[in-house]
């Protein structure tokens, strides 16, 4: 299982890839193929983002006449200015998403790591029983319908903020990744703290958490990303507009510009105002993705590290 992490021959890819890079023809050929293919793939991955950014910056009339284009023919900030002129709904959606993400990540990360810690304790007699109890839920499930009815009819959580947070708090895969990270912390640390009279919870809080920072950062980012991008729980359980998270708000807007128009009229836009529907959709997409796009270059390396640590362990 740990073949990927503990290998004596492991060497930094930078060093290895550059090592002995001769001029032999096979290397040149591979370099040509490699750079070409990777460049094509990279363009393929980035192209759609360029497309929506430039569409959001294009004059509406130009879109209607000529369609979306890669380079804006008639540059315009109108879509953004409308979004920001009447930002009430969007700000509400932002507020919901930010609170859900903050609360969900904090609580979820705490519960995930606490559970993982207990399961990583080798002296805990029932750890395999409990591991199976959690793991089994990934093998078999009751399906959407009983889960839905439980939440709506029995727990009565429809149209609450709770329903956007609680069902996503824990994920077996994250518990497993965290557990395998914590298993690599030497047992001696726990033992000596115990001799000093520290309780299990204190050991977790004061020793294990500080030692698990890389895993906490990675899993925390994964949980945060899942909350930020969640629209599914809102699709199922939210009908009140003030509880709509950002992604669901975007989803509604994409599908239903008329609803958007109405909302804008209510929030004070003149009745006869021509709303630039197409560019507005794209501008809203950018705004909903914005923080991720901005934070992305900085957080990306944590994901890579975390993936490399926990890779192929689940």
């Amino acid at each position: 299982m740990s073949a990927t992490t503990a290998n004596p021959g492991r060497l930094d890819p930078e060093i290895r890839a550059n090592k002995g890079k001769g001029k032999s023809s096979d290397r040149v050929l591979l370099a040509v193929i490699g750079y070409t293919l990777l460049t094509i793939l990279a363009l393929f991955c980035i192209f759609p983002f360029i497309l929506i950014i430039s569409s959001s910056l294009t004059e509406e009339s130009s879109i209607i006449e000529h369609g979306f284009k890669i380079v804006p023919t008639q540059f315009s900030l109108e879509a953004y200015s409308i979004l920001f002129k009447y930002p009430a709904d969007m700000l509400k959606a932002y507020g919901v998403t930010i609170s859900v993400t903050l609360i969900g990540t904090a609580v979820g990360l705490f519960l995930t790591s606490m559970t993982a810690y207990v399961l990583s304790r080798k002296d805990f007699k029932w750890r395999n029983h409990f591991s199976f109890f959690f793991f089994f839920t990934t093998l078999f499930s009751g399906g959407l319908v009983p889960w839905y009815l439980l939440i709506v009819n029995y727990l009565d959580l429809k149209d609450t903020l709770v329903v956007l947070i609680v069902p996503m708090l824990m994920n077996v895969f994250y518990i497993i990744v965290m557990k395998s990270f914590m298993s690599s912390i030497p047992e001696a640390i726990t033992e000596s703290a115990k001799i000093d009279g520290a309780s299990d919870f204190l050991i977790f809080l004061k020793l294990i958490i500080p030692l698990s920072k890389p895993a906490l950062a990675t899993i925390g980012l994964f949980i945060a990303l899942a909350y930020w991008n969640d629209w599914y729980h809102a699709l199922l359980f939210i009908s009140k507009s003030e509880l709509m998270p950002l992604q669901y708000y975007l989803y509604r807007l994409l599908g239903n510009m008329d609803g958007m128009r109405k909302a804008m009229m209510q929030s004070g836009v003149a009745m006869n105002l021509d709303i630039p529907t197409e560019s507005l959709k794209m501008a809203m997409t950018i705004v909903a993705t914005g923080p991720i796009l901005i934070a992305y270059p900085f957080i990306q390396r944590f994901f890579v590290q975390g993936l490399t640590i926990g890779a192929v362990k689940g």
Partner: protein
Amino acid sequence: MKNYRFFSDLKKYRALLLMLTPAVLFFLLFAYIPMAGIVLAFKQFNYQGGIFGSPWNGLENFRFFMESGDAWRVTRNTALYNIAFIIINNLLQIVTAILLFEVAGKWFRKVTQTVLFLPYFISWVVVGAIAYNLFNYDVGTLNVMLSSIGLGPVDIYNTAAYWPLILIVVSAWKALGYGSIMYLAAITSIDTEMYEAAEIDGANIFQRILKITVPNIMPTVIILFLLAIGNIFRGDFGMFYNMVGNNGLLFSSTDVIDTYVFRSLTTSNEIGMSAAAGFYQSILGFATILLANYAVRKYDKDRALF
């Protein structure tokens, strides 16, 4: 005696057990209790009776699901899409990982990796918006491009035949970065001495890739394949729903079990049949996971899930 020991253990582990309590309650509530709700598949649901008070109706829900003709369509679509995703995505990710490792210089690799990983971070709703931008009949980029080279517009959102290709490409696009990093991690951990030995023996770079890199990442590849096969009857709801939505014209080639269950629950209110279809999916999924696990055991005992 045995009982006595149990209670003393209970006391010994009380702090750890207390720490496990939130997670146990969470999974009990959101995973195990819904499992009991499977009985719904055998009932005629009404809101007064709820899950447990509604009258039984035997296999009626299943019969209805099977006879509607949808069962075969959604099962076939779910399985075929997942098979295509598994094969194409993994191949592409492996090739990308090898190339990133073998040819790219530091700077180029960092930039490429960052760019390739970007699609993984955005929600399926945003992917839906991107699809709209590309495929919309009137203003979509694809039709703009087609008309600029003198071809007529294509009506993507009304033509079922285009969707298998589109969904496969979108899936590859979103998963490429994540998967290639997993494989890159596996490649990075290969013992360098093997490469050095091969080089001394005069192997060229292609031979090294084929004879050393590929065989060495095979265990990772096979495990990821088998795990993916265990999920072959689970559709990616976010993807299908945001790309296709409730567009009935496309169902013949886009409807998967997950979207079908969702639709029967929310739009047509066929709660019993929806539960039956969900149950059918769970059983199929459970059986394939057992089979995949059996295959993993045969291949490498240590890597089996259980």
